[in-house]
């Protein structure tokens, strides 16, 4: 007889109890049920497929959205003792890819991007494997990114059929009813849903209005100067993240660094490790930051730009307070901020005339244009002009609805938490002063106990010379 889940947990990880949601998801999987697990950031979603992979022969295939982070995921698997792990992405060198493919059958955990899995040769190779489990990580991306950003996500259902409907685990931190329904529909399954409340009672919610960009910067500086550290500030632009990190350091003396997908892997590694080691006070990040950062004591998350929807917002503020201690999520809003997500949403969306003209004369369009690439993808997959037009119209409606929901949060005057949780079809606990401060209520950091004690500025300790520092390494 197979050992109990708890014995496996003890044996592999040395823990004696599961966190909420883990055991329910594992139990459903053990019963052969496709499972959609909606568990908050930090709940230990990775452990679910690690443990399942440990208990069952064959390969766990993980479909993961962020190319730049897949290698980090593999590194984390290895540190956890799962050495037979590998990732293949478009960034994997030819030599390395060949090497992995030669030993494909030896891997216990294989990470692929949807684009990689959609390639016919790759799919043929994967079909040869004995899959114990298919994992769709960050499954909300199917809905968020699929139609107008990474259409390969929409092939996952068909691919799953070609792989003979393997047992499937869908993971996400946030998914309202619509998203859940869409994930299940796309993957052609009726999963058992394991969901924990997305609410994080220890994160105080705050929205603040500012008049314009200079006032927003000033407010950011003031907050970063007062708040308990460490913290994360999210931006929609890499350049602004980089510039602000430098500016905050110069203006307030905090140890700040930028983190975004444009960094090379060495810088990304160093900044992550510095943050984990407590050598940074604040990270100025884009949405690339977060997935897989196991840092428990983040005290604040500030959004400098308006996210496109509440699901992204919930994901990102979820980095705060994973240790359960008081933390705060602050959204800075200036009139017109909704224009940026609106423009980003439009930029990759063909209008009706373009679709019409493209379907009439596809060869007349430049394949360099990402919008044309998108249309070419649909055309090659036999999707009709009418269906594509309808899809993009529906997509735009959906985006606008999501943005309107985000805006409603920004403008909320009664209870932010209620507004937030309603988007995930959850009831909010009774509103109290300890819950949130909507736009019309000032933020009181002292009452929240989140004000940093201003230590008398001590001179930085004299740095030791390089020889001493080098010797300390060894």
């Amino acid at each position: 007889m197979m050992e109990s889940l708890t014995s496996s947990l003890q044996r592999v990880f040395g823990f004696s109890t599961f966190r909420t949601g883990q055991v329910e998801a594992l139990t459903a999987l053990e019963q052969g049920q496709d499972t959609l697990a909606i568990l908050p950031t930090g709940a230990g979603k990775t452990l679910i497929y690690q443990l399942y992979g440990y208990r069952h022969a064959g390969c766990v295939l993980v479909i993961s959205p962020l190319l730049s982070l897949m290698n980090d995921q593999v590194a984390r698997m290895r540190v956890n003792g799962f050495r037979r792990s590998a990732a293949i992405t478009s960034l994997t060198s030819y030599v390395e890819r060949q090497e992995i493919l030669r030993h494909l059958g030896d891997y216990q955990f294989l990470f692929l991007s949807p684009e990689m899995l959609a390639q016919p040769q790759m799919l043929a190779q994967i079909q040869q494997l004995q899959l114990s489990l298919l994992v769709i990580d960050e499954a909300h991306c199917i809905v968020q990114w699929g139609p107008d950003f990474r259409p390969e996500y929409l092939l996952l259902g068909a691919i799953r059929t070609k792989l003979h409907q393997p047992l499937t685990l869908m993971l996400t931190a946030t998914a309202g009813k619509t998203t859940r329904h869409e994930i299940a529909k796309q993957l052609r399954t009726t999963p058992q849903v394991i969901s924990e409340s997305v609410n994080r009672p220890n994160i105080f919610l705050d929205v603040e209005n500012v008049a314009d960009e200079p006032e927003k910067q000033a407010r950011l500086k003031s907050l970063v100067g007062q708040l308990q550290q460490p913290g994360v500030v999210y931006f929609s632009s890499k350049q602004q993240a980089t510039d602000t990190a430098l500016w905050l350091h110069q203006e307030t003396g905090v140890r700040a660094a930028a983190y975004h997908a444009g960094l090379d892997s060495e810088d990304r590694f160093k900044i992550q490790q510095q943050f984990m080691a407590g050598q940074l006070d604040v990270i100025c990040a884009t949405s690339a930051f977060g997935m897989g950062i196991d840092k428990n004591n983040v005290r604040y998350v500030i959004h400098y730009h308006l996210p496109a929807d509440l699901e992204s917002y919930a994901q990102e503020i979820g980095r705060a307070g994973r240790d359960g201690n008081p933390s705060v999520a602050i959204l800075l809003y200036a009139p017109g901020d909704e224009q940026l997500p609106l423009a980003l949403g439009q930029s990759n969306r063909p209008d009706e005339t373009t679709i019409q003209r493209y379907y009439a004369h596809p060869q007349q369009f430049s394949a360099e244009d990402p919008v044309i690439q998108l249309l070419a993808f649909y055309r090659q997959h036999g999707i009709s002009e009418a269906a594509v037009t309808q899809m993009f119209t529906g997509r735009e409606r959906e985006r606008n609805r999501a943005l309107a929901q985000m805006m409603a949060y920004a403008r909320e005057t009664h209870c932010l938490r209620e507004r937030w949780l309603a988007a995930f079809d959850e009831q909010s606990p009774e509103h109290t002063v300890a819950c949130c401060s909507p736009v019309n209520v000032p933020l009181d950091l002292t009452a929240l106990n989140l004000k940093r004690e201003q230590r008398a500025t001590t001179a930085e300790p004299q740095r030791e010379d390089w020889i001493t520092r080098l010797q300390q390494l060894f």
Partner: protein
Amino acid sequence: MEATDLLYVLDRQQPRRLRVIENLLRGRRTVSTLYWGQRYQLLPLLDADKHLDRGALMGPTKALVAEGLVTLDPEEDQLLLTSAGQQKLSVTYYRPQTSEDWLNLDLEAARQRLLLAVQVTSQYAHSTSRYYPLATDLATRRVIRSWFHRLKGPQLAAALATAMIHSWQQLPVQTAEVMTDLLTGYQHPGLTVDQVASDQQQTAWEIQLRQRDGVTQIARDAQQADHPLHALLHPLWRSPITRSAQATLYAVEQGGSLDQVAMQRHVKANTVKEHLLEAAILSPTGAFPFDQLLPAHVRADFAAVLNADIDSWQFAQLPEALRTRYDFFYFRLYAIWRGRGMTDDGVTDK
């Protein structure tokens, strides 16, 4: 490269082409890039910034022009330092110490191997086995793994520290500081280049130059067979001439005519010429068979019509008789020969 850094690859007298500098940094090894890279004495920077975007130097260039530090010709390609630009050059800007070796070393591979070897040894010295290794390619991980399994033991950490200190003591102390800051090891994530640049109040490019020195100095010292990094770094010394050009050069040295060599090597006649020009530019002084390919009488023909200002020479402006007798290949080869300071009367141009 920021605007400041660009100043240091320009000249007050010699107009330099922006496109050549960009292609050199990006590692586009055309004969034209190599030739002009040599004329500008910038060849060591070949491949120094592989990820530079096309056109990325235009921004810094425009900034320098706006400040009156350089002039840019109407075609937006030729750059020249103004006297204000010349005066702006600072004595404290970093001047590399080891650049004559840069072409002969696979610097990027050496850097990756050094960093990972230090991390692995540092963690081992502190008895930690669960840590995140630096993200490197499969080949680097492999070679480090096998190196580590052969050398691990109580002496490794101390031996490595001693060797690195010895190497970096030969460089400016600030370079040693920078190198130490960049390392990753036990309880020491290491700083990024940008962070070091901001601490040291230098440009990121200067930090890169220091890093090239730091790595090259260690690779030099690791040529000793008893150096702890010998097995890792010694194999990374190589000729800058591509394998294919080396093979062409060898075949020519064996006495084949250019056409015979082309047939024998299954390449076009023009490719043979390109290979030879590449080899002529990148070979150590005295190692290229100039006398065989460019005999004295050919040199005399060119010498009769060309002045000492090599950069002003243009093939199209040669007398027609000469252009009929010799194609561009000989003209270019002669320019390389002269440019490398060789003359028939034993008096060098320089």
